[in-house]
């Protein structure tokens, strides 16, 4: 997700479109990305650490974005 202090023009565009469709009461919209990564074998701490590294190195730009990693079996 873009960090809270970083302007999110895409989120703003979506926020502008919602009232035009009759959806009221939306005070803010932020748009981010979601990556679904499939792994072989067990999700151990070492594997999770590797995914964190992927997130920090390539999937996100830590200068402007935050990320979270969650596991679904």
């Amino acid at each position, binding site marked *: 997700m873009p960090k809270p202090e*970083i302007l999110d023009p895409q989120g703003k565009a979506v926020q502008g479109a919602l009232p035009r469709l009759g959806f009221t009461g939306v005070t803010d919209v932020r748009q981010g990305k979601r990556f679904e990564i499939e792994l072989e074998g067990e999700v151990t701490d070492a594997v999770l650490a590797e995914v964190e590294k992927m997130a920090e190195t390539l999937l996100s*730009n830590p200068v402007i974005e935050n990320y979270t990693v969650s596991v679904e079996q």
Partner: protein
Amino acid sequence: MKIGVVTFPGSLDDVDAQRAVRIGGNEAVALWHGDADLKGVDAVILPGGFSYGDYLRCGAISRFAPAMGKVVEAARAGMPVLGICNGFQILCESHLLPGALIRNDHRKFVCRDQLLRIENNRTAWTSAYDQGQEIRVVLKNGEGGFVADTETLARIEGEGQVVARYLEVNPNGSLNDIAGVTNERGNVVGLMPHPEHAVEELTGSGLDGLGFFTSLVEGAFA
């Protein structure tokens, strides 16, 4: 001097950059993103365009090209590197320059002849200009909004790392009207507008961009 221009899949302005290098009195060397070989060049330009279709984030995938590994290494050792537009985005993604470029605040692609002020003529790429000189060059981008956190912004302003600033209008929502920045050492410069399109009378808005391609030679003989 031998100046390499790296072509990535999706680069658009690599040939224009090579041409500007020659008009500026240097030898242009074509470099390929897939080759971890800088062919003995003295400096490198990362040109504009849409490398890897701007997938993921602009410049995010190009940053890991084999050629970029060498460019990052050489830049850290002091080699002059200029990133124009997409090249600027690649340099920010490589963390060779502070901050990042995001989508224009008005969400539209912008293409205009843009007035700039050279704020720092002590870099490898801007020494041919006078401090405070106003130049007009083409600006064309969809994701040219320069952003950085408050602390970083204060630091680059305080250290004189802002190389160029937009005048008349802020075309993309860049913080502090920043059009270009440099690293602490002054050898790496990123610029959102396109000086390589302003080097000949026949095409472009004038000759105001030429200084970016003559600075290295002038610096070498100064």
